[in-house]
């Protein structure tokens, strides 16, 4: 349903991504991990149209979306959240969702559906600036969901949350995936969380694909362990 082919992105001399390719299946939860500066967020920005790639192509449901603008990409059915909590702080929770519903889905009632789905009715009229971190993240997720997306990209949604909140958030992500059939790509630092949540994952390192395959195989992969644990560490992992 979604495919990235040989995507590269450079900023002047700095190569942020080189020849990244992967595919995501319908209704899959696909994970992306990698050290700081590996290019994960750049990859998201390229997919969502904020940056144009230096080379390569991106396909969504058979359509080439490589050079589409973010708002066009959103209306095609790809929504995303950001790593930094970025709700529209002067708008109410409900209006935050309405931005997605009206501009992304062109279907205002979608905001009410999401409000119920995420259990945000109680804070419906609260300005987004007065929310705690967990609720802010839910609002950001909700705005993205309100666009009636088919593919949802989450950029480190769990960063800064407590263990209980992470559990709750994971349940919501799984519910969205199973009940609404939304395909999900998720960036996450916590490898254990990612391994339990996804069947397949991609690991980036220095802008290149380091690992692409079953999540269960990550801990055994020599190169992954090398990147996470350094030079000679890998030998131990193979036992």
């Amino acid at each position, binding site marked *: 349903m979604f495919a990235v082919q040989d995507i590269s992105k450079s900023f002047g001399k700095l190569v942020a991504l080189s020849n990244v390719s992967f595919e995501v299946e319908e209704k899959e939860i696909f994970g992306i991990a990698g050290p700081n500066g590996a290019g994960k967020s750049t990859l998201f920005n390229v997919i969502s149209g904020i940056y144009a790639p230096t080379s390569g192509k991106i396909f969504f449901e058979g359509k080439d979306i490589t050079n589409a603008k973010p708002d066009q990409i959103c209306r095609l059915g790809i929504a995303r959240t950001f790593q930094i909590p970025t709700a*529209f702080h*002067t708008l109410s929770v409900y209006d935050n969702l309405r*931005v997605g519903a009206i501009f992304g889905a062109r279907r205002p009632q979608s905001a009410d559906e999401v409000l119920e789905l995420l259990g945000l009715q109680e804070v419906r009229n609260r300005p987004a600036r007065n929310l705690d971190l967990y609720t802010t993240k839910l609002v950001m997720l909700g705005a993205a969901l309100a*666009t009636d997306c088919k593919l949802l990209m989450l950029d480190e949604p769990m960063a800064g949350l407590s263990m209980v909140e992470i559990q709750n958030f994971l349940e919501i992500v799984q519910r969205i995936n199973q009940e609404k059939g939304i395909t999900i790509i998720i960036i996450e630092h916590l490898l254990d969380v990612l391994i339990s949540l996804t069947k397949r994952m991609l690991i980036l390192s220095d802008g290149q694909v380091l690992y692409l395959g079953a999540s269960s195989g990550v801990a055994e992969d020599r190169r992954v362990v090398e990147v996470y644990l350094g030079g000679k560490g890998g030998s131990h992992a193979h036992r």
Partner: protein
Amino acid sequence: MKNLNWKSLLSIVVIAFILLYPWLGASSYNKHLFILFFIWSIVAANWNLMMGYAGINSLGNIGFMAIGGYTAGILAKSFGVPAFLTVPLAGLVTSVIVTVALGLPALRLSGIYIALLTLIFADSLPSVLTQTRDITGGAMGLHEIPPFYPGMDKTGAYYICFVFFLIVLWIIYRVIHSSTGMAFIALRDSENFAYCLGVNKFKERLKVFALSSLLTGAAGAVYVHALGDISPTTLGIEPFLLTIAMIELGGVGTFLGPILGAFVIVFGNEFLRLAGTLRLTLLGALICTIILFYPGGVIQFITALEHRVEALLKRKTSPAA
């Protein structure tokens, strides 16, 4: 709900007062001041729509007003076009010029460059005017511009401006509370997130330029028909400063702020005439003080007061309940 009643009640009282004022023995001078208040609050409200709601740091809105005023003045004087036509035409002309000459380039720019571009745009208008003396009257300006209807007195102008004031504020209110207004705020609060939720950044920002300049240009037209003349000094540094002061004093990014600000500044400025040449000094000082110490403006005071009163009422009623 209680809160809403309080506000709408006050608005009704204010509107009723303004309606009846000419019969309550308003002097011609006071009517003149009200006309200025109507027009300047429209200019300030539109400026605030760009600056406070859409986050576009424009410094050129007085220029929009100038284009509208001159267009209407020339149409009426040289071509005999009636006033009910010059006002929309002036708005349209202004909107086209501003959207093409400022809006399109500004979309490619960010932050400080927009402020620079718009300031230099507005600043270059007087020199354009002096170089097209044949039609614009140069430094002397245009005089004896036909009024809205032959034989119009101050009271007539007063009511026409008031109606215009109500219409434009209604439009702005509707825009702020429409999806377009939501898009402005979303872009201002978090540009990339809004963009990724399907908000077309270019279209929405261009809309602000088009709408704000349309209404400001129309305000310029109303101004010349109501007051009869316009010259480069009408658009110089002083009105620029006054309008900035209105927005900042009232409260940036609020609907009522610029209107309150316009009221205080238009009438306060008359008192300040007593200060003579010190007036501009005081205005400059006022702007600096607001920005440094009260960035929220008068509206913030009022909201804070309202909250306090509400809390007080709650405390009083809760033991009884």
